[in-house]
């Protein structure tokens, strides 16, 4: 059972080469002991905090059927990626257990298979995003590359109404300190360039200089910015962040 997973980790298992208790020989692998563990670090507000972030609203509905993990795209690639387990930990308030997986929670690819399969409308995909967001807001993890990408993308949409994919990619690589000239990207550009007509190449080049934008976007930009700032303030308050 996943619920006992934290107890049977290798570091909690004890075997003894030679041990006799009350005249009974309990040496060797056949009498492995699980070290007793007292959980004292419950964060009783954990579920509320996740529920206060966008996407986490329905976490209380979960009845632990496991349909999310069973359908999960990322779980099939990495068995440690386990939405059901994390939802359980959050609802129990087992923060330190949750933190063991803090570096992979952001990897949810938003394929919506879990939301499709969930019989309780938990929207596990949303809970994953809320949890990843919570980890960053609380300072448990640095911003993931995915969050940096989302921020870069959103900033451009809010500023101009549209995005230009080349610009998003360039800024993302710059902010995450990755070289833009990666072997496989160069290879890709080469393959297209071979057949791409000059006119189209020129048009894409121009889009990089003259950013595509929605006309008369200023008021929408201001209204969105104001709303997002309000929401961020609310979220920080809910998470008791100064």
């Amino acid at each position: 059972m996943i619920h006992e997973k934290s107890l049977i980790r290798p570091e909690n298992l004890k075997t003894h080469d030679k041990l006799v208790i009350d005249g009974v020989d309990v040496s060797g692998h056949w009498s492995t002991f699980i070290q007793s563990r007292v959980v004292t670090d419950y964060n009783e507000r954990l579920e509320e905090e996740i529920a206060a972030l966008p996407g986490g609203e329905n976490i209380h509905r979960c009845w632990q059927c496991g349909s999310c993990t069973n359908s999960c795209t990322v779980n099939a690639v990495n068995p440690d990626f386990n939405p059901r387990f994390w939802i359980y930990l959050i609802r129990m308030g087992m923060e330190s257990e949750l933190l063991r997986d803090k570096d992979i929670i952001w990897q949810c690819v938003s394929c919506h298979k879990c939301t499709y399969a969930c019989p309780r409308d938990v929207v596990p995909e949303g809970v994953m995003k809320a949890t990843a967001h919570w980890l960053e807001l609380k300072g448990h993890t640095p911003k993931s590359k995915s969050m940096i990408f989302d921020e870069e993308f959103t900033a451009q949409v809010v500023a101009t109404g549209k995005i230009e994919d080349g610009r998003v990619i360039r800024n993302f690589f710059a902010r995450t300190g990755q070289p833009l000239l990666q072997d496989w990207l160069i290879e890709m550009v080469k393959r297209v360039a071979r057949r791409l007509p000059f006119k189209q190449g020129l048009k894409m080049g121009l889009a990089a200089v003259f950013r595509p934008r929605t006309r008369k976007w200023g008021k929408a930009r201001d209204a969105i910015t104001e709303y997002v700032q309000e929401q961020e303030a609310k979220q920080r308050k809910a998470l008791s962040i100064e």
Partner: protein
Amino acid sequence: MSKYQRVAYYPGCALEGTGHAYNQSTKVLGSALGLKLDEVKNWNCCGAMEVKNIDPKVQTYLSSRVMSIAANEMGASVVMAPCNGCYHNLKKAEHDLAHDAGSREVVERISKKAGHATYQAGQVETIHALDWIKDGVGEDELKRRVKNSLKGLKVANYYGCMYTRPRHIFPEKDQGPGSESTSKPHFMDDLLAAAGAENVDFPLKTACCGGAHTLSDSDTSTKLVLNILRAAEAAGADVIATECPTCHSGLEMHQVRAEKVLGQKTRVKMLYFTQLLGIALGLSPRKLGVHENVSDGMEVMKKFA
């Protein structure tokens, strides 16, 4: 006459960039089939896969603005989006605005301040390019118009995530015979079969290509894409037909990355379904932007064009 004969067209950002060939082939195919497109005036980004992670209701607003312009400034009743991301987001906004007072409140607030009419749920019907061809033309008419049958071309139809999931935002799907299925979508299969293609039994039709993290978690995306490419090849496909610019460029990009980084080479080619249908109608591959694809489909399509 179908109400899809003339629709408001929402190409979205990707179709102005990496998905240029999809934009071009959609327009060329539409005009060859006598379907009219009126581009949504002064449109904005729908929020794609990213804005919802900053705030889902901002995404709802962005998508609602596109529908508001179509309905209130153009008098359109149908919006067609060829990109799965745009299509999904407009559908999601439609669903949220119909069912969630909190979403309505935020959309109304931002719309008022932005100075345009607030979109009201039900004003327009959002459809995908697949619905547009399937209902606007239909398989029988398509069959009659085919000049170069795609007979002998083995196709794996790849629909991706956003076209069918989560099912509650697509109330018109799963309605029995004639409707689209969210577990085994078939509209693209139907259209390509009408064009003469042989659809292979492809188990990963709605598998995820990792598009959301295509650059931020490339190793995962490469693994997911390799699964899809390998499954298509195992099913005997010559080409994978796509209907989303993000899926399409994801498959192309990670096919190259798998080859360069993991040394795993696959030969299957990716073409937009609009390019395949266009070739069947006798349009030239260049006109359909086939030469713009990273994955070079010119060779395999030569015998049909």
